[in-house]
């Protein structure tokens, strides 16, 4: 990815260099938290915050961190931020925090975080690092949101918990729309992600494997 033409620090990760569908990072959480839209949205925002702050902090410290212990320093910073985010979620949106369970804590091990800290924050000034963190976080959040929308709409017939598909019930007692249980399974998230990647590669020929 180093020698291709540089997209904008902020806009690049949103689409042409998206962390999920181009770099294929952070897939596990994308499969796990996208059954419903609310947890997916919260997860996306949480990761964006953690990534932006961690990027800035590491970027500020970049000249004082000894090279040999940089991973430990990064982990300490990220872990502190994740704990703060986790506490805020528990305090204000407890039900979503329950739904996300361990996945908020697992932001620490999210590949996007480590990747951006290593590849960008350690070598750039704080402001570009902030933009980079926001861009990558929002790129991740966007893919999560799209996947969760499709999965919740077809899997449960709802959006944000509100019933959006008209369910008429005829006299014989048959439901008008039957939830497709397949979409609530992780396998469906993988297939939807695959379709997004398919669409994205089709739109960007320079991303296709030669």
């Amino acid at each position, binding site marked *: 990815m180093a020698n291709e033409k540089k997209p904008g620090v902020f806009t690049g990760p949103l689409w042409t260099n998206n962390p999920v569908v181009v770099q294929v990072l952070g897939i596990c959480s994308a499969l796990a938290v996208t059954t419903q839209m609310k947890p997916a949205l919260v997860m996306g925002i949480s990761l964006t915050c953690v990534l932006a702050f961690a990027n800035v902090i590491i970027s500020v410290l970049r000249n004082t961190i000894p090279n040999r212990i940089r991973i430990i320093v990064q982990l300490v910073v990220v872990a502190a931020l994740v704990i703060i985010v986790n506490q805020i979620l528990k305090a204000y949106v407890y039900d979503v925090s329950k739904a996300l369970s361990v996945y908020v804590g697992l932001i620490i091990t999210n590949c996007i975080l480590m990747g951006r800290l290593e590849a960008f924050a350690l070598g750039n000034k704080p402001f570009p690092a902030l933009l980079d963190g926001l861009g990558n976080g929002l790129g991740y959040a966007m893919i999560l949101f799209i996947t969760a929308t499709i999965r919740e709409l077809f899997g449960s017939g709802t959006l944000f918990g509100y019933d959006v598909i008209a369910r008429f019930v005829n006299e*014989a007692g048959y439901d008008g729309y*039957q939830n*497709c*249980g*397949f*979409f609530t*399974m992780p396998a469906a998230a993988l*297939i939807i992600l695959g379709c997004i990647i398919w669409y994205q590669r089709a739109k960007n020929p320079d991303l296709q494997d030669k």
Partner: protein
Amino acid sequence: MKLNDYINEKIDPLFQKGGKYEKLWSVYDSFHTFLFVPRHTAARKGVQVHDSVDSKRVIMMVILALVPAALVGMWNVGYQHDLALGINDGWFMQFLYGLVAFLPKVVVSYVVGLGIEMTVACIKREEVAEGFLATGLLIPMIVPVNTPLWMIAVATAFSVIFAKEIFGGTGMNIFNPALITRAFLFFAYPKAMSGDEVFVRTGSALCNSPIEGTAVVDGFSGATPLAAVADGSFDPATYSTIDAFLGCIPGSIAETSTLAILLGACLLLLTRVASWRIMLSVFVGGAAMSAIIAAFSDNAPTVCQQLCFGGFAFAAVFMATDPVTGCRTNTGKFIYGLFIGVMAILIRMFNTGYPEGAMMAVLLGNACAPLIDYCVVKSNISKRAKRVNA
């Protein structure tokens, strides 16, 4: 002018390059090769042994082999319906009822599947591959009779797109598309795929709203023997093995009659369309596993019952033997078959969430087939290398 000449001289050019309907060439070609002999049976130069048996004709053999199972299955649909209502209007009416219930499913499966295949072929400007001819008939045969048509349409579309076209079409798929359809239905609409209400149609043949004035017998249950196994209420003495062998028990449309399936198996084996190695080893693996389980448990089905119940025989004869998704090496075929047989019985007996294990076992076997082949080839190479070095 004869019809044949008329088609060759007048219709053909319309679809060739530069013709009026050039874009529909794939569709035209698929019907042409389906109805006539293939255009090229041998190249002009060189000596070659080649006849007109192309894969369309091989697949026609599979379809012929499916006919007995389909016929008995259709009769059984009507028979179970009559049993549920407590009436008997003769075998012909029962067959007719089953036919009316079965045919729409076949039409839906073919229209949806072939529609997608032809669209993709037109986009890629390729010949329409013939694999779906068999798949399209298999799909309605392995679903419960109460499955709504739209579910079959959704599942068929899913499996043709995501299990077949994504991988490159016929001959490239790693999983059996018919089984993927069944698996999709099972996971997406579990209520419509198992339980004691889906396998017997109590309404009219075309739709499932109950018929007026024909009260269903009190306490009637259309539970399959495997459902009884799953909830632990199975007693081998109360279920007739002969009924299961002949095919008058509730079950998915064409999987109930082991006898009819074996007739189809004979045709497949005589014409060498299916591999006897896979078929035999699936039955051997299943029988061995059932014998072990029956030896340790009092209320487990006997070996004969295990092989006749549910979709085991159907999966062994028509699903496991699919040459595309199965093993290629001869040793591999034995391992693959044994694996499927053992796994089918294991899943059936020990995972109460999946009353029928044959579908899962074959899909698992499909996933392992390339690995089995790889190991067989590698071990053969190292064996021969040792001989050379010695």
